C-alpha cells in the first residue's frame, strides 16, 4: 500500500514537471498556433544560465528572476530575428526551423557548460513546514509555483486585453490586423512568455533530475503528450494532462506492463485517448465552416 502511494505521489510529482512544460507549449500554441519543438532545449539553456549565476555567487531568487527576464527577452528575440522571415512560410518549414533551434540550443548547452551533471538547489528548504512523507518540500513548492503560473496565464488570456489580442492574432491574423492588433509583436510576446515559463519549468525540474544538456529530452515528449491529452488550447487541461501522464506512466510501469515496454504502452494510451476524444480530454471542438 505504501509503495502504491509512493508511486502515485512520485507520479504526481513528475506530472507537475510535465504540466509545467505542457503550459509552456500551450502558451506558444495559443500565441502562434505552432508547437515549439525547441521548448525543452531553451528551458535547459535558461536553467544553465541560472546555475551559472548561482555559481558566481548570486542568491537563488535573484538568479531566478533575472533568468526569467533574460529568457523572456531571449524568446522575444528568437521570434523577431529567427522566425519572422518565415512567418508566412508553410507549417513544416517552421517545424524544421524549430528543429534547427533545438539542435543549436542543445549543442550550445553542451559546449558552454559541458556534460557532467550539475546539482541545482531547490529554493524550498528540506525541512520546511510543508515537507511531507510522500511529497518532498521541493515537490510541494514546485506545485505551488506551477499553480501560480497557471492562474496568472489563465487570467492573462481571459481577462486582459493583451491576452485577448494575442489569442485573436493567433486564431485569425488577417482580421486581427484589420482591427489594429500588431500581429507580429503578439507572436514575439507569445514566444517571450513561453520562454519565461519554460525557464521556470526548467528551474523547478533541475533539482529533481539534475542539470545536464539532455535534461529535457525525455520530459518534452511527456509534456507534449500531457498538453495534447488535456487539449492544446487549454492551460488548465494541459496541467491536468501532465498529471495524468505522470501518474499513469508510473503505475503502468510498476504494476501493469513492467518497465521494458513503458514507452509502447504510453504510445498506445495516447493514441487510444485521442481516438476516443480527438480534441483531447478538455479541448474545445473546433468547428470549421464548409
Amino acid at each position, binding site marked *: 500500500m505504501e509503495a502504491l502511494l509512493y508511486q502515485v505521489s512520485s507520479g504526481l510529482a513528475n506530472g507537475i514537471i510535465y504540466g509545467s512544460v505542457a503550459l509552456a507549449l500551450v502558451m506558444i500554441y495559443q500565441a502562434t498556433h505552432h508547437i515549439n519543438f525547441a521548448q525543452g532545449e531553451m528551458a535547459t539553456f535558461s536553467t544553465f544560465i541560472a546555475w551559472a549565476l548561482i555559481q558566481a555567487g548570486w542568491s537563488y531568487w535573484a538568479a531566478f528572476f533575472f533568468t526569467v527576464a533574460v529568457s523572456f527577452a531571449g524568446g522575444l528575440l528568437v521570434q523577431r530575428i529567427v522566425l519572422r522571415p518565415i512567418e508566412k512560410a*508553410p507549417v513544416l518549414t517552421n517545424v*524544421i526551423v524549430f528543429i534547427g*533551434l533545438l539542435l543549436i540550443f542543445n549543442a550550445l548547452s553542451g559546449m558552454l557548460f559541458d556534460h557532467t551533471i550539475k546539482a541545482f538547489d531547490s529554493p524550498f528548504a528540506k525541512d520546511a513546514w510543508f515537507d511531507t512523507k510522500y511529497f518532498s518540500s521541493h515537490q510541494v513548492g514546485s506545485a505551488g509555483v506551477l499553480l501560480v503560473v497557471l492562474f496568472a496565464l489563465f487570467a492573462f488570456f481571459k481577462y486582459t486585453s493583451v491576452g485577448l489580442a494575442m489569442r485573436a492574432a493567433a486564431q485569425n491574423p488577417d482580421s486581427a490586423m484589420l482591427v489594429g492588433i500588431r500581429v507580429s509583436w503578439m507572436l514575439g510576446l507569445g514566444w517571450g512568455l513561453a520562454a519565461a515559463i519554460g525557464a521556470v519549468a526548467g528551474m523547478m525540474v533541475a533539482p529533481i533530475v539534475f542539470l545536464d544538456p539532455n535534461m529535457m529530452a525525455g520530459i518534452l515528449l511527456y509534456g507534449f503528450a500531457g498538453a495534447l491529452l488535456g487539449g492544446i488550447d487549454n492551460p488548465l487541461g494541459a496541467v491536468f494532462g501532465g498529471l495524468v501522464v505522470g501518474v499513469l506512466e508510473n503505475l503502468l510501469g510498476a504494476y501493469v506492463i513492467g518497465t521494458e*515496454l513503458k514507452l509502447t504502452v504510453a504510445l498506445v494510451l495516447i493514441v487510444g485517448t485521442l481516438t476516443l476524444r480527438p480534441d483531447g480530454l478538455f479541448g474545445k471542438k473546433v468547428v*470549421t465552416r464548409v
Partner: protein
Amino acid sequence: MKPLDRKWVWIGSLLLLAVLLVLPFLVKNYRVFQFNLVLVYAVAILGLNILTGFNGQFSLGHGAFYAFGAYTAAILMSKYGVPYWATLPAAFVVCFVFGFLVGFPALRLAGHFLALATFALALAVPQLLKYKKIEGFTGGVQGLVLDKPQPPFEFRFLDQPLSSDRWLYFFTLMVAALMFLLAWNLLRGRVGRALVAIRDHPIAATAMGINLPMFKSLTFGTSAGFTGLAGALGAIAVAFVSPDSFTVQLSIFLLVGLVVGGLASIPGAIFGGIFIQYVPNIADELSKSAPAAIYGVLLIAMMYLMPSGVMGGLHRLWARLRANSTG
C-alpha cells in the same frame, strides 16, 4: 513544351544517366557506398512525401517503418538465409500492412495530434526492438550482422572492378528508379489528384465521393511500404542493424529531408537524400565541439533561402529565367 526544350530535356536526361552509370567507377568504393545511402534515403523520403507532402498527414515517425523494413530484411537474411533481393518485396508488404493498420487510428487524428502519435511510435520502436521476448529474432541490443552481397558476375570498366559496393549501388539504383517510376505513375493520375484533394479540402473531397478512410489508410500503407523497402535496402548496404540505428533522430532527419527537398515533389526526394547524407559530414568538418549546432544553423539557413525546399527554389529560378528570356 517547345521542341527545343524537349531536345534539352532529352540531352540532360541522357547526360544524367551517363553520369550515374560511370561515376561509381571513377571514385573510391567508400564514396560509392555514400551514393548508395543517398539513394536509400531518397526512396525513404519519397515514401514520407506520399503521406505528408501529397496527402497532408503529418508523420514524425517514419523511422519506425524504415526500422521494420530493415529488420525484416535482416531477419530473413540472417535467420532464414533468404537472398538479399528477395527480402525487398517482403519488407514492402510487411510495412504496407503495418502502415495500413496505423492508418486507422490516424484517421481520427489531425495535425499536431497525429504528429504526436507518430512521434511516440518512433520513440517506442527502439524499446520494442530490444524486447527480450523477441530477442531470438532481433538479436536484442547487440543487433544483427549481415553478409554483404557479392556481385553476381565479373566486370571491369575504366580499369576498376565491379566491387560489392558498386554492384549494390547499381542494384539500389535500379530499385530506386523503379520506385520513383511507380510513385510518379501513382500520383499523376486520379489517385494523386484524390490525395491532394483530401489534403487541401477534405470535406469537399468526401462530397465528391472519395472514400476518405480507405484512401487515407491505403496512403499510409503505401507510404510505409516505400519507406520500409528503403530500410531494407539500407540494411543490406550497411550490413548491420541494431535498435540504436533507428532512434527518433532518423524520423526527424527524414522529415528534414522531405522539407528540404520540397513537399509534394517527387524529384525533391533526391535532394532530400543528398542533404541528410552529406550535411552532417559537412557539419562535422566545420566543428568538432558542436557539430549539431552547425547542422542546426545550416538547416535554418536552408529554410530561409528556400522555404519551399530545393524544388521550390528551382521552380522560382526557372520561372525567373523564363521571365527574363521572354521579357
